[in-house]
């Protein structure tokens, strides 16, 4: 009986604690959602002037905001894919092989994480302008890949930490070549790490503002648009777009979740 009580107490504590953390995470988001329905038209859009859907309509005529959002999605997708491939290969390669300069490479890896983004942004800018690569989509993607790769590698490495080399050896002993082994044996084991890394890379990329600020040229991304609008108080149509993005991601997560649950039940 006593034990049961204790367990129940634990359960309640767990739920309450997690609930508080989620509240903390979602509180500013609720501010955004509420303000996207605010009928106010005067900057800085703080006082509540009634409920309206107008901003959701207004949003579709704000072409510069929409195209900035499109740019952000393209950059995030391309750089996540590139960073995930490069990072996964790199992590496995660095784990498995000994080579000259491994130590240096290892320390280099920390640098994009370690240095403030502004330094990476400035240093990338100086290089791009010295080599004369026109600033824009290309430089944005290159920069985003650069700061995403280490995060992919960290995630994959955390997985490799408990990785048993012998299953790979077994696979090769059974006659599979390196490539088959990599895809059939190594990748599935690392998948959670790779997935986590990719997700993190994507999250970092769509949110990056500091590095993009220096290497964007005339290409606007969504965060850069936000940075400009934040100076004068975030306008409700920006809040409206954020709310749409939020709802989109939530719907997506719920859909995948219920799909997974259904599949589990069927099994």
């Amino acid at each position, binding site marked *: 009986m006593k034990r049961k009580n204790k367990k129940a107490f634990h359960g309640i504590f767990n739920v309450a*604690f997690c609930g508080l953390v989620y509240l903390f995470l979602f509180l500013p988001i609720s501010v955004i959602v509420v303000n996207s329905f605010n009928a106010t038209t005067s900057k800085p859009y703080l006082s509540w002037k009634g409920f309206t859907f107008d901003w959701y309509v207004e949003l579709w005529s704000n072409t510069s905001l929409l195209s900035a959002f499109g740019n952000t999605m393209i950059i995030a997708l391309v750089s996540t894919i590139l960073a995930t491939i490069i990072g996964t290969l790199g992590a496995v390669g660095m784990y498995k092989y000994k080579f000259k300069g491994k130590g240096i490479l290892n320390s280099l890896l920390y640098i994009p994480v370690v240095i403030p983004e502004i330094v990476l942004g400035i240093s990338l800018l100086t290089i791009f302008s010295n080599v004369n690569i026109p600033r824009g989509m290309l430089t944005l993607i290159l920069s985003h890949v650069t700061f995403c790769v280490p995060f992919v590698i960290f995630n994959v490495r955390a997985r490799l930490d408990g990785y048993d080399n012998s299953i790979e050896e077994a696979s090769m002993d059974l006659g599979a070549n390196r490539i088959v082994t990599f895809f059939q044996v190594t990748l599935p084991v690392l998948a959670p790490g790779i997935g986590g890394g990719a997700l993190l890379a994507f999250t970092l990329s769509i949110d990056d503002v500091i590095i993009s600020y220096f290497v964007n040229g005339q290409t606007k991304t969504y965060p850069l648009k936000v940075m400009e609008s934040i100076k004068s108080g975030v306008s409700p149509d920006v809040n409206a777009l954020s709310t749409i993005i939020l709802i989109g991601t939530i719907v997506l997560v719920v859909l995948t979740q219920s799909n997974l649950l259904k599949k589990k039940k069927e099994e």
Partner: protein
Amino acid sequence: MEKKHSSHQFRSNTLPALVMVGPVALLLVLLVAVPLVYVAVMSFCTTDEYYNVVFKFSLANYGKLLSPDYIKIYGQSILIAFITTLLCILIAYPFSYIIARTKSKRKQLFYMLVIIPFWTNSLIRVYGWRTFLGTNGWLNNALQALHITTEPLDFLYNQGTTVLGMVYCLIPFMILPLYTAIEKLDGSLLEASSDLGAKPVKTFFEVILPLTASGIFSGSIMVFIPCLGYFFVSNILGGGNSDVIGNLIERQFKSGNNWPLGAALSIILILVTLLLVKIYKKLGGDMDSLGV
């Protein structure tokens, strides 16, 4: 068998190593090492009257950065980063532990709920705190409506709000590695420990904590260091009153227009970080075993 095995290891390690490590090496050398060397060189330069960088060797920048005024800001910045990291660990560890070890079918959902907020632009979210905590913000209005306070309280624009914003922005970087590390824990190990009569506290300190230390460490790196540089948080929530090193660098590259000084600041920051990593290595041993 033995022979075949060793020939596998030996035969052609160069090519696969090159294929796998080559791209990342190329990327890091061209887009990290070379630019940073450039910044390092710049840190020994000066500027002319139009703020152009002049390549003339000078130690003046570093001399300036050792003045007490700057050291005070480093101290403040490191303090903010330290408190932020500590708070992140205290919140993220139990949280990650609960969601990583839950038997609920919705485990994946709990994990995703951590990430979803971060798909919304961080600047707007930090600004959301400003709306929430302002003099006429939600919190003050609620407190007054409930007659808990009569006058609006001053929440905004101090070190506390800067720390709050930092924790808010950086906590997923603590949760994610911890989640990964805790999820990897072998349940039978914990059972074995308790079967052997270990109290939960003992199990935690002698089994769980050492096994998840890698998560804490990589989480701390990912929280502590960006904290030194996240100038936009202290701009939006600190009102410019609680500068971190990132604000100093930003100022030199922007309004101050003294790039060499900013470069020198960056170099100092990099050195501080390398020092931290070194200290860790001395104290905690091998980095690789921690999986960072």
